[in-house]
């Protein structure tokens, strides 16, 4: 609290507050009530995309990281290739490749069009989920590789000496220690994933960014939706940062 009471910070806070008040009073916000339901839907879709792709991506990243860290080369080489390709090309390109590429390929097969999955495959969101998941898995695979390698050998050897089966070692010792090491990085990567979600608007998924763009097109108001958007993403980032800080504090650490 004391840090906020320094004279220059008080002045800066007052200035920031004045800016917020000026924004609230002088800019046009009369479109807000009309678009509020759409904005809420968009916000939900953004958060849903973030959570689903992060969880799925993490589930993929663990075996990928494990393969790169300790796996035989038959597994390690494809995993490394996957990570290089994902990390070496822009997400926008991957997204468009999947959406336009697969989207134009699937209708050519009658058995896909007649299958029960077709109503889902015709929509845009499965491609958005797929692209974001693969991207998260690619970046997180590298993180997990480092984390798996960083677990002290003695821990694993002790577990082996106790006669623990290999899967139990992974589940009880290796994975928890690796995730604990990776947590600070994972927090940053989740923020990056949040910042990647607006790209799905380019393939017609209506997330919060797409809603704000629609407001801009409907009402010809240029700045206000963008300001609101920036504020929303900053709040979401803040929540993610706090959440990971809370998680990190929950993990019992014993510095050796």
């Amino acid at each position: 609290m004391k840090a906020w009471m320094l004279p220059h910070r008080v002045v800066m806070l007052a200035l920031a507050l004045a800016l917020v008040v000026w924004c609230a009073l002088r800019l046009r916000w009369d479109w807000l009530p009309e678009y509020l339901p759409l904005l809420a839907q968009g916000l939900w879709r953004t958060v849903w995309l973030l959570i689903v792709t992060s969880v799925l991506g993490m589930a993929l990243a663990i075996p990928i990281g494990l393969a790169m860290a300790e796996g035989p080369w038959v597994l390690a080489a494809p995993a490394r290739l996957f990570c290089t390709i994902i990390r070496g090309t822009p997400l926008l390109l991957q997204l468009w490749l999947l959406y336009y590429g697969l989207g134009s390929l699937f209708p050519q097969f009658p058995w896909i069009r007649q299958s029960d999955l077709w109503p889902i495959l015709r929509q845009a969101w499965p491609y958005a989920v797929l692209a974001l998941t693969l991207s998260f898995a690619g970046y997180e695979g590298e993180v997990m590789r480092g984390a798996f390698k960083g677990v002290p050998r003695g821990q694993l050897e002790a577990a082996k000496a106790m006669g623990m089966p290999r899967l139990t070692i992974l589940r009880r010792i290796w994975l928890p220690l690796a995730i604990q090491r990776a947590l600070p990085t994972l927090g940053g990567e989740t923020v990056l994933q949040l910042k990647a979600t607006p790209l799905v608007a380019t393939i017609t998924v209506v997330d919060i960014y797409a809603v704000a763009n629609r407001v801009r097109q409907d009402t010809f108001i240029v700045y206000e939706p963008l300001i609101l958007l920036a504020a929303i993403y900053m709040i979401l980032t803040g929540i993610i940062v706090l959440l990971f800080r809370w998680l990190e504090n929950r993990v019992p650490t014993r510095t050796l």
Partner: protein
Amino acid sequence: MQALIEALGLQQTLDLLALSPPGWGGNLLGGLANSIQIALGAFGLGLVIGIFGAYGKLYGGPVTRDLLAIYTTIVRAVPELILILILYYAATDALNKALVNAGFDRIQISGLAAGIGVLGIVQGAYATEVLRGAILAVPPGQIEAARAMGMPPMKLARRITLPAMLAFALPGLANLWLIATKDTALLAVVGFAELTLETKQAAGATKHYFTFFLAAGALYLVITLVSGRLFARAERWARRGEPGAARGGR
């Protein structure tokens, strides 16, 4: 060779990717050139901002430090796409309004300049953090020794701090450069003809989506792999003379 191409059924792909007009290869390479130009410009601008930002954060007064903290926090919390929209549209609009109010004519800002400016500001925030960490990693004794010898601040930065921190900064900077090359793709959303947008147009016109997107992906991958090599070499150069460096140690 010809037989091999025909045997693999690649003739159509080669026709599509041919450099002269019925093929779209020329367009893709033009887009690639634009992308590289923007990435280089943005990376350079980001480095300049980053050096000033890092010095400001380390040695600046309390107000400078807080302002820089706000800058890096906002840029790192708001998606690049939205920053690009805000800076691309709002900044050109504001500049033109200011010019008209001051009695000048409106100017048209080229896509290249706007792209470099926007991505440079984004890069600057990340570069500030990378360079700040690198400067902190320089043994303080070296800087203090230079100060004790009476070296003026500019000379100290040029001769001691910046060369000594380079080895620590290069891995982070390599990452930033890769982010810069990939972020150029975001300018496709505001309609700048860089590689990704050229690819989408070519793919849309010919309906051969996989061919073109995979070709563009290969181009991006080549940039990544080549610059990875270059940065590894640069790091080895920056670490010359360090104990253990010659033996390939850490």
